[in-house]
């Protein structure tokens, strides 16, 4: 493949995979069962990225393993209704078209682990971009992936393999930092706040949460439903990867490797970190305390689970919203929620269940949004910088209250 017999597209993919293997001293390549690609929104790709993906597709490159896509910058078949301009939509459609030509399934979601057809099994080797999904797959499911970039994930999909280094190896999955939480964690937003406090202090370390299981109900039998536990861990991993660069955390007595291997997963001499309070996180994440008028309430970062959509539908049933609400989720999850009637309930209240995108990768400023509220830690990390919006951060109840009244109320 490296000498170009299979064409320039495959040759470039092999060059990327082989070079990364050399840089990180990988002994060989390991076959992957699934690839998740990031770098899908036109906002991040620019014209150069869109051209490049089309060239790669035209050169005949095709994926050899099941491969799914991160969110795009808009809902693919409803962008006009979202107020997206053709000058954004056309290159966005072109980029997704190039991925589809290469054989990628256009899921356009950051939560491939919530899809019945793709949820990884323990021990599976993956090449996933999207740092929040990487954290979930490694930590909660016990699968194995490094934190890939968009082009390196695509290259792995075309080659069907990834270099065997980092989190693919047992010895690299040991905890550097032991964390004890001494303050109550009541809801998803608290797990986002915890991700800020810890993420800011640990960089890319591997973590061992000593007592986090005290704040977690059991995972549902069907993990693709999310459940209260899945929703908390989804938020935690997303924030740890955004505020820090965490790729794997273990929860004592809870996550699969911790259950099997126990404290042998803690490196000798591991550092200890005690979390006494979430107040420092709320002060920073709830960044604009004088902001009361909210343009857009947005829930679903990472993309909302079935469990979250159900909770929102329950809170909004029979009521009418005073502000815009986007529940951002995967098309696959939205279809399941519609079968249960929850999407219809949210729409009847005036909210939108938006698929394929989110308020970080959509061009929200260009559609007139300047203030947002969310319960998602990763959204609070990225939206103010990427989208130049003001932000309130709090519980799902506060967010829905703001959506119903148009104003953010202190708790």
């Amino acid at each position, binding site marked *: 493949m490296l000498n170009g017999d299979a064409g320039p597209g495959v040759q470039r993919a092999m*060059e*990327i995979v082989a070079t*990364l293997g050399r840089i990180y001293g990988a002994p060989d390549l390991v076959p992957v069962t699934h690839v998740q690609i990031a770098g899908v929104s036109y906002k991040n790709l*620019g014209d*150069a990225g869109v051209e*490049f993906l089309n060239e790669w597709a035209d050169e005949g490159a095709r994926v050899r393993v099941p491969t799914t896509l991160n969110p795009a910058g808009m809902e693919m078949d409803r962008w006009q209704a979202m107020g997206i301009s053709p000058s954004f939509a056309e290159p966005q459609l072109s980029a997704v078209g190039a991925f589809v030509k290469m054989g990628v399934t256009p899921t356009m979601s950051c939560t491939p682990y919530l899809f019945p057809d793709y949820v990884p099994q323990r021990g599976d080797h993956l090449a996933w971009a999207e740092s929040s999904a990487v954290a979930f797959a490694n930590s909660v499911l016990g699968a194995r992936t490094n934190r890939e970039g968009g*082009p390196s994930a695509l290259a792995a999909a075309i080659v069907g393999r990834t270099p065997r280094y980092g989190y693919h190896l047992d010895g690299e999955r040991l905890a550097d930092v032991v964390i004890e939480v001494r303050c109550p964690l009541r809801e998803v937003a608290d797990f986002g706040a915890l991700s800020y406090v810890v993420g800011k202090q640990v960089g890319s370390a591997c973590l061992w949460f000593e007592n986090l299981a005290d704040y977690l109900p059991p995972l549902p039998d069907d993990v693709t439903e999310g459940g209260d536990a899945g929703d908390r861990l989804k938020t935690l991993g997303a924030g740890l990867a955004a505020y820090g660069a965490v790729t794997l955390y273990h929860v004592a007595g809870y996550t699969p490797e911790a259950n099997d291997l126990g404290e042998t997963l803690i490196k000798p001499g591991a550092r200890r970190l005690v979390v006494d309070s979430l107040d420092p996180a709320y002060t920073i994440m709830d960044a604009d305390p004088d902001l009361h008028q909210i343009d857009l309430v947005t829930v679903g970062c990472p993309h909302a689970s079935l469990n979250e959509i159900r909770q929102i539908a329950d809170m909004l049933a029979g009521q009418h919203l005073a502000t815009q609400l986007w529940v951002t989720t995967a098309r696959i999850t939205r279809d399941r929620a519609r079968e249960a009637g929850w999407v219809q309930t949210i729409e009847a209240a005036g909210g939108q269940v938006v698929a394929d995108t989110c308020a970080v990768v959509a061009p929200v400023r260009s559609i007139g949004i300047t203030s947002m509220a969310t319960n998602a830690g990763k959204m609070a990390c990225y939206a103010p910088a990427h989208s130049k919006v003001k932000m309130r951060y709090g519980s799902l109840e506060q967010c829905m209250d703001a959506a119903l009244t148009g104003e953010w109320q202190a708790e």
Partner: protein
Amino acid sequence: MESTTRMQGRVIKSGKAAGRALVSPEPIGFLGGVDPDTGVVVEPNHPLNGQSVAGRVLVFPTGKGSTVGSYTILRLARNGVAPAAMLNAQSEAIVAVGAIIADIPMVDQLAIQFISDGDWVVVDGDAVEVYDQSTVA
């Protein structure tokens, strides 16, 4: 004093290039750190803030930041404002992948402390020749 230094590193992206060195003592994050349209370093408080990487042999310890930075390097190249080559002490995935997809010659495992701003640098495969700026001024 010897005016020419010859070094041998590890090829990340093979190629030939020459240009004046632009040396950063700090890692570079391309997404949000370098303007993809102009090539100017825009990260606040970065030692290269306000300088353009266009056409320079960009010398820095390693990459940092978002993996989307690989695409920022591609955008620099397609906008005609990419570095002529990139030299690292130790390469990592973001910049390495950027160099490959943007076809920018890149070498790492180099003693970059022996390269100064403004030196004329010639890169050919794994070979790097550094001409002291005083001899080529």
